[in-house]
């Protein structure tokens, strides 16, 4: 399946991917209205210092520990292999935060459920907004074997 991969050599540490992610998942069509003056809760996060930086988000593991450990069945792999969260079923126990080895599932802004990258299949972007918005191709969306 196509996944998001990160080339840390190319990352400028500009954090644009975080803004693109927050905007794509805001449900709004105006980036300024969606983000200006607000604390953003992106599903992708940039780590690093002045020398090294890179973005981290869900790896969509084929043998996902978050799915196996979910107490409500809110996390599952869909038919395309995307690890998706059904926030209607999620009770916010955070067992997935305990389980994920990459630390890429986080509480939603009100902490009542969790949120995670769903490759923008759940919003109007249609393709990963972080990839589309990355100025240096440090984040790519492709098939790797």
């Amino acid at each position: 399946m196509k996944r998001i991969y990160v080339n840390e050599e190319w990352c400028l540490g500009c954090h644009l991917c975080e803004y693109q992610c927050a905007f794509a998942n805001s449900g709004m069509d105006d980036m300024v209205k969606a983000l200006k003056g607000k604390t953003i809760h992106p599903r992708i996060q940039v780590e690093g210092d002045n020398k090294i930086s890179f973005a981290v988000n869900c790896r969509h593991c084929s043998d996902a520990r978050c799915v196996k450990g979910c107490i409500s069945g809110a996390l599952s792999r869909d038919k395309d292999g995307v690890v998706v969260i059904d926030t209607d079923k999620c009770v916010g126990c955070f067992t997935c935060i305990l389980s994920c080895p990459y630390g890429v599932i986080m509480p939603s802004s009100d902490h009542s459920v969790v949120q995670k990258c769903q490759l923008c299949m759940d919003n109007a972007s249609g393709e990963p907004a972080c990839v589309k918005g990355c100025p240096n191709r440090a984040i790519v969306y492709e098939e790797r074997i």
Partner: protein
Amino acid sequence: MKYDYLIIGNSIAAVGCIEGIRENDTEGSICVVTDENYRVYGRPLISYYLWNKTTEKKMLSYRPDNFYKKNDVELMLGTRAEKINPEKKTVSLSGGREIGYGKLLIAAGSSPFVPPMKGLDGVEKKFSFMTLDDAKVLAEAIGKDSRVLIVGAGLIGLKCAEGISDRAGSLTVVDLANRILPSILDEKGSAIVQKHIERRGVKFYLNDSVAEFKDGTATLSSGKKIEYDAVVIAVGVRPNTALAADAGGEVNRGIATDLKCVTTIPDVYAAGDCAECLNSITGKSQVLALLPNAYMMGHAAGVNMSGGEELYDDAIPMNAIGFWGLHIITAGDYEGEAYVKREGTKYKKLVTANNNLRGFILIDDIERAGIYTRLVREKTPLDEIDFEAIKERPQEMAFSRAVRKDDLGGVK
């Protein structure tokens, strides 16, 4: 009637087993026998159900509606497995039926342990807190004026307290131990969480126990008296091992299994809360009665039952739990050198031993906790990572470039 695969119990280990079997064998017949009258649901959801954070319908959709049909599983509800006959490879069921198996999984779970307590037989409204039916009966029996006494300040007792907090008048918790949640927290952690729960109006009597229940009053060993309308017994649980023991299988605290989840009875496997597995940190067998472990052990059993090989060799104790918005994540154990950081209700304890992270406690500071879990589970040598950085906060940056490249650029 004979099935290729027979599963006793219909909880999370059973689902793991079914999904494990179907990865190898799409043809073999599968039957699940359960004494409950529901399709599968996650037991820990019952407190969220009472707290109106979920509904019965959502609980019962742990797997899609077509789960049993899609996996060609015959589900026998309201049926109790009474006896395993290993020489005939059959299981006797309630109602007198007997069905055969090729491979059998015992995923019978555990039962609430109710210690002998003076006067308990005379308590009209007394409950356990384990199943959806338990939660329903409890909800029916209490109202806004009810004074509820919970015996047990562990995970089950305190989740029950949270669950019924908006339904009951007052909540009192009694425990023999001198602190709450001793199975997952250290003393400082217990104190932080206790204070938080007390702010919600729950009253604790620790280092104490009920000497006698009589006419709506519990007299404690200390002499204190507590008036109650209903009592919840949440002292602990016991693995359901009788089926295995009666069939001649080795049973310690739980049913003994090897890394392939096989019991000492040929073609009989066990998984979940009734079974022991290897704790990969201590190297000893123990019951790890936790939902994620039930799934993973059930899955390994299913793969092995159907001719594949999956060793269940990386189990660790771990827990994610929250009380009134205060979240706790723990893993491993706390035998080693501790690094502690505390700020208000935020508490972090990382325990290292032999160049490994052996365990941790995180309270109100749980972001990216799974990175710590990974260090514990994988026994990552700490001198191969930037431990100073990761102590501060869990981060991918603490790993070497080569590990990062694999994590973020490799196929998972």
